[in-house]
């Protein structure tokens, strides 16, 4: 081979490998980690329902996006989302990632903060490239320090989760039992005539006994994450 040919061949090799390396670098940059979760919710009639939540993490500058074509999130729900992401990022030391939240809810609007804990654990799963353990579902608000706060309507949420095949429900501390009021009546007689005397009693009902789903109380995002990753 003549020196000129060798030179040309070497140049070709360099250019070809550069092109290949560049295109690979480009495609690996866009490798996202995607997590699917369900979130218990209640519809406007107070019935339990499950909303789908997909969270995507990919290298970026730490921004958080929602899809404005999906259910509308009011400013409280967005503030709860920001707290959830803040709490998750406190446990994450990797390279900066952008997070995308896609919500598939049976409602037109998502209000309040009871999906906060799911937003936060989901972010931790996606940031770490992990998947959610099957059959586990969580309800709870979240504070920026990672503590999980109380929510309402646990019973209908548990019923919906059990019906959808979930077998472990994570709830905020103190919420595995709920107060339920009922009439407590005794038969009495007054001068021979029978009558019923009733009082309203409030009793504690165990969500687990009532629905058949296993219920565990969690008070921080850490505890929930340990039970939810696989």
């Amino acid at each position, binding site marked *: 081979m003549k020196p000129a040919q060798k030179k*040309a061949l070497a140049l070709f090799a360099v*250019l070809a490998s550069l*092109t290949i390396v560049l295109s690979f670098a480009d495609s690996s940059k866009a490798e996202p980690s995607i997590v699917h979760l369900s979130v218990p919710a209640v519809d406007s009639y107070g019935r339990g329902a499950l909303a789908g939540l997909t969270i995507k993490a990919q290298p970026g500058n730490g*921004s958080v996006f929602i899809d*404005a074509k999906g259910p*509308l999130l009011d*400013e409280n729900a967005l503030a709860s989302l920001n707290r959830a992401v803040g709490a998750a990022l406190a446990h994450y030391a990797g390279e900066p990632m952008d997070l995308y939240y896609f919500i598939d809810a049976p409602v037109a609007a998502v209000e309040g903060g009871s999906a906060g804990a799911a937003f936060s654990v989901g972010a931790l799963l996606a940031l770490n490239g992990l998947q959610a353990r099957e059959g586990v579902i969580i309800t709870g608000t979240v504070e920026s320090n990672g503590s999980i706060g109380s929510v309402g309507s646990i019973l209908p949420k548990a019923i919906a989760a059990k019906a959808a095949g979930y077998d472990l429900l994570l709830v905020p501390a103190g919420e595995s039992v709920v107060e339920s009021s009922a009439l407590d009546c005794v038969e009495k007689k007054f001068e021979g005539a029978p009558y019923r005397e009733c009082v309203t009693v409030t009793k504690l009902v165990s969500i687990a006994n009532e629905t058949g789903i296993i219920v565990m109380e969690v008070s921080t995002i850490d505890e929930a994450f340990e039970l939810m990753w696989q």
Partner: protein
Amino acid sequence: MKKRFILFAVLACSLFFFVGYLSAPSPYSSALVDAVAVKHDGGGVVTTIRFIVKPGTGKLLLDVSESLYDADTELSLARARDAAEELMGVSLDNRDIYFSIEEDEPLIVSGASGGAAFVAGITAAVLGAELNQAGIVSAQVNGSLIAPVGGIDEKIVAAIQEGKEFFIIAENQTVKYEGAHSQSILIVRVRSLDEAVRLLLSQ
């Protein structure tokens, strides 16, 4: 001789590929659009919104890491996307649109009065066109028309302070101090969304 020719051809091809790869048009385009809002203290403020368009699946991605939005704003943004599609006659189902507010201070954005500005921003980003920075619009989108908004006097004052030269409003918008404002800025009344966007796209 033949060998040398083949070698040359291979070399030329690889060079073309390499140069082609480097100079390929970026798969995304962006546009900045100014919108005007009323703060809690009642004063108007001009904020800059960035729209980025990338190849995708029709998503409308709202950056919520700093500023927050109410449901009306989200809905008006989703409607603005549809209106922009209609206006351009182009489907955005194969593109993702990113929306972010370019401010240091986080804002709470509420209401639907950004609608027409959103349509202008999306249109400019998709077409790769630039918006005329001398102009600004504040109007809701109502089908192919634009509709009045609240707090217009405060918004016009903010636009004047920002050095804007013309302000586009809906045809039936009432302005309390129109005479006074007109000393400092050209108020343009427009009926259709199409006309409003065209005015902002013309240099």
